[in-house]
């Protein structure tokens, strides 16, 4: 087994006074796509925000290629090559579509992704490049959010509920673009409500339940029963 790029060990994360994660231990190998599933409120978003540096944690709880990064600020984590596609997309309303993408690349990390690659992946964004980001449809906004994260040429991309609130046909379109994104050595953690979707795009799966990892397994061999037990605690 290769050394993991990301390893979480005994991560306890707090959200204000509320403890949202208890002793989470997990890892991501180079180039691996990992699915993170779990019910609403299980702590998935807190976990993503912790890794991205938006929630500060004990330094040793999160390691990136061996380096303890749990206490780093989000901008420092981004510079290491970890990008978050946040839940709810959270585009910058006063920036145009293209500016949203450009600001994603402002760290100038070297790599294959640039404006024209993102426009190749999502051609509709090129047509809409000068529009306000808030004037786009939900699916197009999600494409901007993904493109914005890719522009930093991350080694690990965290996708938090990228299908939330989108029409099935748009979800299909976005997931069809996924292999073109992660197929080039980039690792990914995909948080998803749609379990079948999550399993189909990932190599391994973790399930969170009330802030604890309740299941870990290979996506192609984990049983339905095991998932529903891990999901609902029954």
């Amino acid at each position, binding site marked *: 087994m290769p050394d993991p790029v990301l390893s979480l060990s005994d991560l306890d994360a707090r959200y204000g006074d509320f403890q949202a994660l208890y002793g989470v231990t997990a890892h991501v190998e180079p180039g691996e796509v990992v699915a993170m599933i779990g019910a609403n409120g299980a702590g998935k978003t807190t976990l993503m925000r912790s890794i991205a540096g938006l929630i500060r944690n004990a330094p040793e709880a999160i390691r990136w290629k061996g380096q303890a990064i749990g206490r780093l600020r*989000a901008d420092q984590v981004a*510079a290491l090559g970890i990008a978050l596609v946040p839940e709810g997309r959270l585009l910058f309303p006063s920036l145009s579509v293209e500016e949203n993408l450009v600001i994603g690349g402002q760290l100038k990390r070297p790599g294959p992704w640039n404006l024209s690659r993102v426009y190749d992946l999502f051609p509709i964004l090129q047509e809409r490049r000068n529009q306000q980001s808030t004037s786009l449809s939900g699916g197009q906004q999600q494409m901007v959010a993904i493109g914005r994260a890719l522009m930093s040429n991350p080694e690990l991309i965290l996708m938090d509920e990228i299908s939330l609130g989108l029409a099935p046909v748009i979800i299909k379109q976005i997931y069809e673009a996924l292999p073109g994104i992660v197929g080039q050595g980039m690792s990914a953690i995909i948080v998803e409500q749609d379990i079948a979707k999550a399993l189909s795009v990932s190599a391994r799966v973790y399930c969170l339940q009330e802030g604890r990892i309740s299941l870990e397994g290979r996506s192609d061999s984990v049983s339905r029963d095991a998932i529903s037990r891990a999901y609902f605690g029954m």
Partner: protein
Amino acid sequence: MEWVNAVLQGTLLGGLYALFAAGLSLIFGVMRLVNIAHGDLIVLAAYLGLTIAVGLGIHPLLALAIVVPVMAALGYALQRGILNRTMGDDILPPLLVTFGLSVIIQNALLMGFSADPQKLQAGDLETASLTAGGLTIGVLPFLMFATSVAVIGGLQWMFYHTALGRAFRATSDRQDVAQLMGLNRAHVFGLAMALSLAVTGIAGVFLGIRTSFDPSIGGSRLIFGFEAVIIGGLGNLWGTLAGGVIIGIAQAVGGQIHPSLQLLAGHIVFLVILAVRPRGLFPKMEG
């Protein structure tokens, strides 16, 4: 003709008010910080200009070459060292801290320079004028107005056409997501305050050339600045210029009606606009 002249002089005076206000508008737009010490920082810049102009024996406008970078550096240090610690969801701590800063600056200036009124000597520039079609325009007010338009135009351009402006807008929109883009919020805020105080440096030197000043006048400059910002619409730079001009014209026209009405007329126009359009004449719009 007197009235046309009053409107013209008021417009030019409005340029100075817009300079007072531009720095306030900028930092409010980027980080929702209301800087109570802004007026005192303008006065501080005037004293800095005085010290440099007298000390080096140079023209006050030449002193700008030193005043502006020094004020910018001070702004960055102030933001990183003190104000960033007060920033959060609660708007009260920065208000209290900048209020305290205002008191400290006033008293430090009082200790350093006494309460005697001072003035920056700009020589012939102070009395030079241009005459056209029965109207006389002072060169100095004209220069202040032109500078104000140039500063606000420059800030506006910076906001919408540079990477720094993009970073300012992104941070203003969503601070946490801007962090995800690799923007260090503390640094971005520091740069915004540096720019704000650089403009304050220009405003302070012009203030010192135009009128005499002493350590206590910051508060009244702050009022004009706030009024210009609010009339124009919070965070809208061209609106701030319009707001400054409206106050300037109101004061000049009021003074034309009766000299005692000058300041009051400006405040009354402000109140009327606030009552009719609480969000200002030009609520934040895209450039």
